[in-house]
């Protein structure tokens, strides 16, 4: 934890892609156990912001503090930090040449230095956790999108992270497969996992989120209780965005 009791804290984050100023001074902190849902129109910088938390995007300016350490410090061992932050991607990004179990055990063995047997045990445990232990031997190409995404969640969880990041994880799924993934995430939230979720699923934001951030044009417009913001947004911009997606 950081000194202020937060698990992760972003201070004045700016990010440029060339001349494109994508994040324009973002400050926010996530407390342990919070489920922070990040919404906003496309191009508003949600994904980039999420990816700065595990330094997949290096902020051009600003600091990221995670668990009591400034991880934007050049001397930080980024690989070690990342073992404590799980991320799930829109495109699943499972390793296609490895089956579900091996997708999970790879980092357990190579990064956490677990033995083959230990790693396998934990992999099966996590596959069970997300409800697809029967697909342990299946390759990604043999799984539906929803199943692949649940393996990806299990892969991230197996590292026993302190924080989970979800980057539009249901956007690439067929509508009938969205629910199984959202249900998995909901259960995680109920178990007390700290989560930051970029999504277009407003139902999820309302029901599961403990806090809602609305982003537009590289800044955070609203920050508060999801129900309150949905029923009474303070910004005109939020109102028009919500009227389009609700």
């Amino acid at each position, binding site marked *: 934890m950081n000194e202020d009791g937060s698990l992760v804290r972003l201070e004045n984050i700016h990010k440029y892609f060339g001349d494109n100023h994508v994040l324009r001074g973002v400050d926010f902190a996530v407390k342990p156990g919070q489920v922070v849902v990040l919404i906003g129109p496309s191009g508003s910088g949600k994904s980039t912001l999420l990816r700065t938390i*595990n330094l*997949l995007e290096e902020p051009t300016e600003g600091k990221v503090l995670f668990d009591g350490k400034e991880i934007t410090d050049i001397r930080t061992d980024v*690989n*070690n930090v*990342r*073992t404590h*932050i*799980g*991320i799930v*991607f829109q*495109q699943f*990004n*499972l*390793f*296609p*040449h*490895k*089956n579900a179990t091996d997708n999970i055990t*790879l*980092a357990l063995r*190579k*990064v956490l230095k677990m033995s083959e047997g230990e790693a396998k045990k934990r992999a099966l445990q996590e596959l069970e956790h997300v409800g697809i232990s029967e697909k342990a031997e299946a*390759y*990604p*190409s*043999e799984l539906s999108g929803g199943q692949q995404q649940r393996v*990806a969640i299990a*892969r*991230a969880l197996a*590292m026993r992270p302190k924080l989970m990041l979800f980057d539009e994880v249901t956007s690439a799924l067929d509508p009938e497969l969205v629910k199984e993934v959202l249900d998995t995430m909901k259960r995680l939230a109920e178990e007390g996992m700290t989560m930051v979720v970029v999504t277009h699923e407003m139902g999820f934001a309302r029901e599961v989120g403990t806090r809602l951030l609305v982003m537009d044009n590289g800044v955070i417009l609203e920050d508060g209780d999801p129900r309150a913001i949905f029923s009474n947004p303070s910004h005109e911009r939020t109102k028009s965005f919500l009227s389009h997606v609700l």
Partner: protein
Amino acid sequence: MKTRAEGFTAWRRELTPLSALILAVGVASLGVSMGGTIVFVLVQGVGSFEQIVSSTTSPFQASLLYIGIVLGLLAIGGGYGVYRMMPTKTAREATLSGGALGVLAVLFSLSFLWFRSGEDFALFIRLFFSFDVLGPFTETFFAAARNTVFLAFFGQLIGVLLGGFLALMALSNRAVVRAPARVYVNAFRGTPLLVQLIVGYLGLVTGLGLDVSVYRTGIIILGMNAGAYTAEIFRSGIQSLERGQMEASRSLGMSYLQSMGYVIMPQAIRRVIPPLTNEFVILIKDTSLIAFLGFAFADRELLAWASDSYAETFNSTPLIAAVAGYLVITLPLIRLVTALERKLRSGLVGIGA
């Protein structure tokens, strides 16, 4: 799945009598002209060039070709004349296939007739098809074939190791690491292998004063050359993977090198097997260039063996033997790699997977 026999029965059922006839004429045209010629020449004997000349210039062989032309023209006319009227797809394919076989038969027969009418046809046969001159060189031929395989294999081995390393360098974020790889790759791709061999050999032997054989120099330079091409093959294979693979791997806490080794490279290698095979086949043939440097007798590869044997016999048949040798090496290799590729495909999707 239908068995082969069931498939054949179904095929025969859909074949109409006319389409079967046209297909049969097409098969017969090529069978008589090409098949008949081959069988006839073999039966007459290929031990000496005189036998081959007499069989290939005989009136009987000419009649085979003329029959082939007539049947071929019938198949072409029939096949392309009626294929639109065929009631089933099978029947239509049969008539078209009959026509295509007819085209082959006519082309083969006409070319052969033209070729054998040449003034120096007998001389050509004597120079290239005097198989009896090969007798004393049989043992050295197999040694040369083995040397060709070894040169290519070790050259490719160096090439793959070097190429993998260069590809990683070329993909570095740091210009000072990228630049030497680019210079190396472009220098070797941009200059002829023959020049590299000559300069490399003279450089090693006279420049550095090293006592290396042509054989070893050949392997080294061939490997260095292959490294440049292999580097580009690996680089394109790595770059063809989605960025998400590296991101997912790094997000799990794996280092850049771990991600490369366990996630990126295993996928990239599967993707580059076809271009890598292609490169290896080219390399096998490029071993022939080393002959320019002058091998020690026991180190000779196929081309060196062929030109030495040619010099001794004043006959070019060893060249034909060398050609056969290269094919015997390359064709099974291509099949082997195709089989390997299929095996490695497990779990991967893609067109034709």
